[in-house]
């Protein structure tokens, strides 16, 4: 594994009710551990993952916003959030638990276009 690829993970599912975000993060962190250039885009219901102070203990689950803190330890700094998805759900970018760059329009298209591999889970 000596070449480096840009891998964009698109997380588009809500934090609870399914395991999509948790398992997608597992895959993203593994790719980062193998020194790939990992990018993460939160879109659609995936933006709910970014809300801070989630209390998942009542459903015996883990707080996804806390799991996102791990991105820093893996040097994943290219974290983006789709601005339309935020607007549609009445969430402001300043509310997000981690620093995610708001992205939309042409820039969003370019992000997807320039990635070597896109994995949407």
């Amino acid at each position, binding site marked *: 594994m000596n070449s480096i690829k840009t*891998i964009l993970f698109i997380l588009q599912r809500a934090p609870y009710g399914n*395991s999509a975000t948790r*398992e997608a993060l597992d*895959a993203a962190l*593994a790719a980062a551990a*193998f020194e*790939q250039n990992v990018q993460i885009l939160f879109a659609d219901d995936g933006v709910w993952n970014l809300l801070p102070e989630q209390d998942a203990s009542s459903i015996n689950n883990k707080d996804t916003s806390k799991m996102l803190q791990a991105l820093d330890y893996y040097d994943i700094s290219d974290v983006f959030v789709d601005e339309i998805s935020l607007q549609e759900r009445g969430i402001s970018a300043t509310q997000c638990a981690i620093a995610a760059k708001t992205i939309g329009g042409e820039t969003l298209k370019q992000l997807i276009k320039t990635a070597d*591999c896109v*994995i949407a*889970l």
Partner: protein
Amino acid sequence: MKFALLITATPFSTQGAETALRFARAAVSNGHSIERLFFFRDGVHNASALVVTPQDENNIPAEWQQFCEAQKIDAVVCVSAALKRGITDTNTNIPIAGLGLLTDAIINADRVLTFG
């Protein structure tokens, strides 16, 4: 072209696994190669050795097994996803492995397709 397939679709409940199988067969028969099949999330059920289907129904896990054996395809099941779902006994051509092999497949393939 070298394809890597990320299969997250469970057999029977969804169509995705069958579609992935048909894609893989079509790719090979058209002269392309499969870098790796990576079974992830609910897709781990495709590798189960314990699936029994009625005679008049398609046994997709058995079909994967036969395809991998006949075409010498590299196929693995994600260990963390599999163990959580009780998949410890997989078909012989589809061993359990780590997520590092997904990264490895992404690096070496020309295209990665997700079937969910």
